[in-house]
C-alpha cells in the first residue's frame, strides 16, 4: 500500500502536468512552470502568517492565489509594458521570490518555512500524511484537480486548439483568446502549486516540458500528442519508482533522469534512422 500511494500520486501529477504542459509547450510558454515555482513564495508566507500553521491547506491556497496573480502581472507586462514573455517572467518571479524571502527573514522569522521544501518536495512522505476518505490529503487534492483538468481539456479541446494554433484567426471567429489563455494558465498554476508540495518544483517543471517534447517528436496529431504526452509521463513515473526502489535511490530524481534519458535516446535514434534512410 505504501508504494501504491507514492506511484499513484506521482502518476496524477504526471498526468496533470503533461497535459497542461502540452499546451504550454505548444504556446512556447513552458517557462511559466519555473516562474510559478518561485513567485508563489510570498503566498505561502502570507497564508502561514494568517493561519499560523505550516503544511496546511491554506498555504497551498495562498500559493495558488499568488500563482494566478503572478500570471496576471506577467501577462500585463507582456501585453501593455512591451516586454517579451521571457523577460516578463524573469522580472516577476525574481520580484515575488525576493518579497517572499524578505517576508520569511523578517515577519515570519519563527515560521521555519524551508525554501528548499518548496523547490524539492519528497514524495516518499505522502503515504504518512493524514487521510481524507482513506486517501492521503495531497493525493486527494491532486485527484480533484486531475478530474477538473481532464474534463476541461475534453470539453474545451477545440478552444485550446484554435487559440493555440492561430490566435488572430480564432479572434476573428469571435473566440475569446483571453478566456482560453487564463483558463489554461489558471489551471496550470493551481495544478503546479499542489504538485510542488509533493514532488518539488524541478520535477514539476520537468513533467511540464519533457513529456510534450517527447510527444512532439513522435506524433503529428493533437489528440495523439496529448495521449502520448500523458502516457510517457505516467510510464516514466512507474518505471522510475521501481528503478529507484531496486537501486535504493530517491524516486523523484530517478523519474526526472529517466524521462530525460528516454527523450535523448529517442532523438538520437530518430536522427540515426533518418540518416540511414537518406543513404539507402
Amino acid at each position, binding site marked *: 500500500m505504501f508504494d501504491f500511494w507514492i506511484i499513484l500520486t506521482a502518476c496524477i501529477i504526471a498526468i496533470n502536468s503533461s497535459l497542461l504542459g502540452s499546451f504550454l509547450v505548444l504556446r512556447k510558454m513552458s517557462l511559466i512552470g519555473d516562474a510559478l515555482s518561485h513567485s508563489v513564495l510570498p503566498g505561502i508566507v502570507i497564508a502561514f502568517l494568517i493561519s499560523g500553521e505550516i503544511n496546511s491547506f491554506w498555504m497551498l491556497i495562498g500559493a495558488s492565489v499568488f500563482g494566478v496573480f503572478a500570471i496576471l502581472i506577467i501577462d500585463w507586462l507582456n501585453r501593455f509594458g512591451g516586454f517579451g514573455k521571457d523577460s516578463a517572467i524573469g522580472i516577476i518571479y525574481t520580484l515575488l521570490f525576493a518579497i517572499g524571502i524578505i517576508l520569511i527573514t523578517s515577519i515570519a522569522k519563527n515560521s521555519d518555512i524551508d525554501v528548499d521544501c518548496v523547490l524539492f518536495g519528497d514524495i516518499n512522505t505522502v503515504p504518512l500524511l493524514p487521510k481524507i476518505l482513506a486517501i492521503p490529503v495531497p493525493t486527494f487534492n491532486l485527484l480533484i484537480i486531475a478530474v477538473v483538468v481532464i474534463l476541461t481539456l475534453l*470539453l*474545451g479541446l477545440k478552444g485550446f486548439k*484554435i487559440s493555440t494554433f*492561430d490566435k488572430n484567426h480564432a479572434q*476573428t*471567429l469571435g473566440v475569446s483568446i483571453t478566456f482560453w489563455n487564463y483558463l489554461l494558465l489558471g489551471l496550470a498554476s493551481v495544478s503546479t502549486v499542489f504538485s510542488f508540495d509533493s514532488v518539488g518544483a524541478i520535477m514539476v517543471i520537468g513533467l511540464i516540458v519533457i513529456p510534450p517534447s517527447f510527444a512532439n517528436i513522435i506524433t*503529428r*496529431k*493533437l489528440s495523439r500528442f496529448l495521449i502520448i504526452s500523458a502516457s510517457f509521463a505516467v510510464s516514466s513515473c512507474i518505471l522510475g519508482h521501481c528503478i529507484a526502489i531496486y537501486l535504493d535511490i530517491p524516486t523523484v530524481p530517478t523519474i526526472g533522469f529517466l524521462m530525460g534519458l528516454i527523450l535523448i535516446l529517442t532523438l538520437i535514434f530518430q536522427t540515426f534512422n533518418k540518416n540511414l534512410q537518406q543513404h539507402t
Partner: protein
Amino acid sequence: MIKKEHSPILEVHDLTVTYDSKPALYNASFGIPKGSMVGLVGPNGAGKSTLLKALMELVPHSNGYVKFFNENLDSVRKKIAYVPQKESVDWDFPATVFDIVEMGRYGNKSLFKRLNKEDKEIAKEALAEVKMLEYADRHISELSGGQQQRVFIARALAQKADIYLMDEPFAGVDVASEKTIVNILVQLQNEGKTIFVVHHNLQTAVEYFDWMILINKNIVASGPTKDVFTPELLQKTYDGNLTTLEQIGQVIQNKQFSTRKS
C-alpha cells in the same frame, strides 16, 4: 482621390491606428462596393496589414469606425473570413491539413459542440477547391509555402463568408499556387463575394484587381483600378522610391489593365 460609394459593403471612416503613440495608419476613410476585387497596395511599412487587422479588430482603433454591411463587426462576424499572413503561425503545430481547414467551421457554432457530417463535407469541398484534397492527412509541417497558403485559403472558404480579407496571399508562393489562388478569387467574385487583398506586386496588381486602394500611412487613393493606377497617384504613394518608380513606369507603359471581365 477617394471615390465615394453610396451603398458600400465595407465602410471605413477616419480610422487611425497607433503603435506606441506613432500612427501606423492615419485617418483612413473609404468605401468598397459589393462584389469587387480590391487590391490594397503600398510600400513596405505603409500600414497595409495594420489596416486589415484593424478591420477585424485585431488591433485597437485610436479613432474612427469600421462598418460591414452597415453594421459593427460583432453582429456580422460569420459573414467575414480573414486570412492572416502564413508566417504568423507555427507550422510545426501537431495538426493535419484537414484539422486546420476544419477550424474554419469553429465559428459557426459553439466551440463545445462537435462538428457534424455537413461541417466535414464543407471542409472537404474547400480543400478540393484549393486542389489539396490528397494532402488532407499530411502533417502541416510537410507543406511548401504555396501549399500552406492554399490551406489557409481553404480554411477561409470553409467559413462560407461573403467578404474575404487576405493578407499577402501571394507572398512566397510558387507559380502553380498563385494560379490556383487567383482562380479561386475569380470564382468567389463570380459568386458575388467581395474580396479584399493586401498585395505588394504592382505588375500583377493591375491584372488581378478591379478596385484599388493606394496606401502610405493614409489613403492616397481608392477607386476603380483604371482611375487609381496613374503615374501621379502611384508616385504620391511610393514617394522617392526610385526602383519602385521605374517598375511603375514599366507597368504603365504596358497598360495591361484588367481584361478578364470584358
